[in-house]
């Protein structure tokens, strides 16, 4: 007769710490899959609420680095850092960011990032109509956006996983990243490759903001309609 596993032994199976013998016994249990699922589900809400719950906000780590805190707070954070690998990594990043002379970033009149809003100039729809339109319709189209001295062509195509979007920026050779964002944040990210082109595949239909970000420039298409055709 197969012996029944203790609950903590099931936990070992889930974490991958079970011996081969224990795994064999677990696999023979009729409710094997169900037990694994229920143990995983049991812990999730705790991770959601507790993961890094006692880590100081990173600004506090910065204040600790600048010795701006009271002696008691300094000591409290020192103790936390000794125990928390995540905060140790955060602090290393902060210290690196703060290590240069203050004015290093402002020297030479370093320009700040220019932001240009691109507007729809013309579009060709999927019906094959050669007539330019002022709105995008259908599951495949090509469109031209302009703003300032910039011109961007976008092509929407059907994709087995959703929608594909191809883009080409008429510009001097530049590199950067391209983001497709919705109100809750960035959904997709692609690289602006050589020739200033980019491609997204498997996009979930919807409305997006498209941002092309280079070291000196942000080009934005504020309302890109990639909704279901």
């Amino acid at each position: 007769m197969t012996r029944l596993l203790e609950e903590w032994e099931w936990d070992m199976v889930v974490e991958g710490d079970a011996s081969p013998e224990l795994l064999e016994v677990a696999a023979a249990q009729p409710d094997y899959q169900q037990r694994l699922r229920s143990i995983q589900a049991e812990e999730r809400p705790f991770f959601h609420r507790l993961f890094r719950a006692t880590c100081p906000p990173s600004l506090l780590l910065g204040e600790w680095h600048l010795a701006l805190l009271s002696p008691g707070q300094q000591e409290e954070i020192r103790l936390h850092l000794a125990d928390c690998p995540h905060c140790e990594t955060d602090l290393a990043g902060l210290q690196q960011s703060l290590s240069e002379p203050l004015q290093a970033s402002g020297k030479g009149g370093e320009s700040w990032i220019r932001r240009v809003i691109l507007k729809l100039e013309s579009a060709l729809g999927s019906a094959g109509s050669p007539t330019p339109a002022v709105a995008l319709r259908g599951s495949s189209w090509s469109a031209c956006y302009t703003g300032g001295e910039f011109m961007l062509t976008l092509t929407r195509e059907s994709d087995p996983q959703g929608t594909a979007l191809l883009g080409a920026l008429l510009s001097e050779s530049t590199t950067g990243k391209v983001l497709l964002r919705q109100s809750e944040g960035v959904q997709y990210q692609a690289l602006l490759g050589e020739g200033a082109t980019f491609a997204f595949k498997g996009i979930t239909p919807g409305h997006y903001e498209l941002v092309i970000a280079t070291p000196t420039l942000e080009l934005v298409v504020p309302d890109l309609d990639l909704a279901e055709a």
Partner: protein
Amino acid sequence: MISLQPELMDVDVLSTTCQEESSKFFRDEERDDRFCYELFRRALKLRNQHAWGALWNNYRNLVSGWLRKSSGFDSMTLTMDELITLSFERFWYAMSDPASFDRFASLPSLLQYLRTCCASTITDHLRRHTRERFLTDIDDAYYLASNEKPEHQLIEHEEQQRFWRKIQGLLNDDQEEALIQSYFLLGLKPRQIHKKYSHLFPDIQDVYRVKRNIMNRFRRDNDLKDFWQT
């Protein structure tokens, strides 16, 4: 006639003079920090909105440069505009208590703090991504509906801490606290906990036995009943 005493200057004049002195700062020339310091004081200590707007305009380029040079900037999924706004908001929010400003006796110390706000904005954004990745690993259905605004982050942090205090109240001794803290708060695996606290858990099975006891105790707790169902 324009007074050369910063405390008596109109904000617009103060702002222009601050800009002039700042360009000397970037050329490593001798400069007078009193004008910029006064602009910061009016904006942050006196909460003067006009001065705050001038400060934003004067230092926006510098903030943008700091952000770009911050560790982790290349992994950002926010636009530069958003990062600048979040950094300034963080700076404003951190100085909401007038006494906070008194910690900074010089312009360089204020600028260093503003740069710390930039770096920590990026660090917090990376933190959220790490957290998302960690939670997605353990839960396919995980979705983080979070907000980057400093005040929301504070509320989220306080809620987490309140919950942690509740959990601490259910733990019996140092062994249990070390285990739950390492497992849920730091995300360590039982094997790592056994290694780190071999004096408390001589065998890896001890980690599992103690954890199971605690989880069963949590299950019996009336206050946590709702929590299990959410």
